């Protein structure tokens, strides 16, 4: 039971991967432009990321390695170099987008432009990481992140046509604007299937001291955590279909349009709840991605790492998240549009995914690391499917960004 209570790792991972600026923006855009029709992408993304997360937890529990550590150990630094560089760059862009998300929430709350909030947000995040422990991050983000359940309450209050919702969970072809439709499908999948998510989860499992006794709880934690994120993402899409598409607002080009989502369901409180949800989810994601940068560098170069140790015990690790947070804040402070930056970083995330997943598949089938817990046929098919999907996303997303994206 105590182990199952570590669901907070699943929830915090899910908040960082699903409920951040990227997922909220792409789901809201999809609902506005295509009503319920793109719901299947959220369902597919949730299923895929649940498999990947379960595998990363299983790998950590059985082998005692994180994924990055395992790739370095199995293939050497030369093979790890490309995924390391690309993931570090893409994660930095995602970190900027998340700092943008918190800054936008603060602009909504105070009326002071988001640019002015970027550096204070970076400073506050840094203080949290510098002074806090991994447990504080897990429990704090999980607890406050529950505010995002307001999206689920909102969609229930808006009374959607549930038969139409169920029909939209099955993939379908667009009735028009095919290029935009597939671009949005790719963006939602890209936002869901972020390597940040499963790399963070495997590092978190090591931080929490998981061993083989966690194999059962890992399944439950990964499934419930990702389901939490998936349900809320689906709720954002459905609300957007009701509120924005229902009023003929078919394009979400400006982040100022997003708070309208909850006003119908909750009136004045809708605005407050949206601001709180965006701020907390993006802050959780910013903390997660900053830590991931530090994990990535430390595990690649063999430094000491661990959020529970004081910074002086692992100076390289602490220096990386410090630099990442402040470098990540620069584009937002310079006035970059958080929504555009988010969409761009989601597209790059999709391109980057296969670089990390391909060696991970090999590790999951290596008996030296996994013993009798190697991937079974179902897991292998799922991972190969995900990799194929990610490759397709990589090929399709960026050209569509220019020729078909809105």
């Amino acid at each position, binding site marked *: 039971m105590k182990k199952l209570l570590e669901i907070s790792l699943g929830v915090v991972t899910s908040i960082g991967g699903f409920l951040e600026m990227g997922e909220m923006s792409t789901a809201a855009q999809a609902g506005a432009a295509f009503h319920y029709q793109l719901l299947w992408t959220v369902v597919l993304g949730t299923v895929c990321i649940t498999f990947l997360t379960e595998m990363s937890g299983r790998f950590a529990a059985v082998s005692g390695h994180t994924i990055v550590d395992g790739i370095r150990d199995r293939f050497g630094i030369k093979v790890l170099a490309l995924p390391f560089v690309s993931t570090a760059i893409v994660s930095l862009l995602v970190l900027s987008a998340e700092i943008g998300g918190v800054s936008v929430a603060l602009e909504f709350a105070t009326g002071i432009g988001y640019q002015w909030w970027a550096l204070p947000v970076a400073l506050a995040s840094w203080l949290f990481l510098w002074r806090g422990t991994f447990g504080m991050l897990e429990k704090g983000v999980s607890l406050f992140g529950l505010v995002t359940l307001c999206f689920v309450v909102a969609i229930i209050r808006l009374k959607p046509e549930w038969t139409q919702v169920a029909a939209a969970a099955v993939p379908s072809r667009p009735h028009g604007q095919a290029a935009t439709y597939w671009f949005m499908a790719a963006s939602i999948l890209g936002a869901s299937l972020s390597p940040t998510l499963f790399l963070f989860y495997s590092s978190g499992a090591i931080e929490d001291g998981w061993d083989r006794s966690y194999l059962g709880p890992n399944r439950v934690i990964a499934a419930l955590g990702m389901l939490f994120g998936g349900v809320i993402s689906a709720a954002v899409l459905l609300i957007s279909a009701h509120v924005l598409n229902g009023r003929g607002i*078919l*394009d979400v080009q400006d982040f100022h349009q997003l708070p309208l989502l909850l006003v119908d369901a909750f009136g004045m409180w809708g*605005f407050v709840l949206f601001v709180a949800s965006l701020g907390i989810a993006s802050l959780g994601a910013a903390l997660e991605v900053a830590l991931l940068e530090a994990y990535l560098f430390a595990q690649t170069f063999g430094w000491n790492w661990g959020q529970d140790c004081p910074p002086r015990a692992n100076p390289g690790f602490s220096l990386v998240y410090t630099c990442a947070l402040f470098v990540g804040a620069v584009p937002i402070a310079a006035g970059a549009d958080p929504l555009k930056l988010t969409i761009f970083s989601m597209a790059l995330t999709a391109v980057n995914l296969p670089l990390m997943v391909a060696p991970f598949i090999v590790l999951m089938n290596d008996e030296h690391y996994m013993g009798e817990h190697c991937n079974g046929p179902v897991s292998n098919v799922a991972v190969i499917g995900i990799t194929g999907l990610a490759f397709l996303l990589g090929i399709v997303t960026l050209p569509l960004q220019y020729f078909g994206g809105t």
Partner: protein
Amino acid sequence: MARCERNSDCSTHRAMKPTRSPSLTAALTAIALLCGACTSSNDAATDARIVLSCARSASQWLDSWLDGTSPSSYARRSVDSASEQVGKIAGELQSSEPVAQIRGVQAAFDAARTALNSGDRARVQQARSTLNDATIRLDAWMRAHPGSAS
């Protein structure tokens, strides 16, 4: 040495390329024109759809300002931001686009900004009504033009 041979092969290959036939040239030109026309028509539809979405969002912001369901600074900043976007589109209008309708929305946005800055409830209500009228005209244009349905 191998590189030189490969290079010379390449140039030989280039030299031996058949000259483009008139029919191929005509077909390529037709495709290019078609693509250009499609892009232009898609751009017009996309621009009109974006302006329409901005205008409808602005109606919501003005409503929320009037109802007090959101802070006034949010409504002002949102209208400013959307107005800037509509202004950009209006500044690059082409003949295929609904010039008068988009300029009408742009003017309604200017009125909304002024009204919000004044903080006068009656002026905001008036601006909302002007914006609604401009939105209806643009929506009518989009419905009248196949391929740009709202």
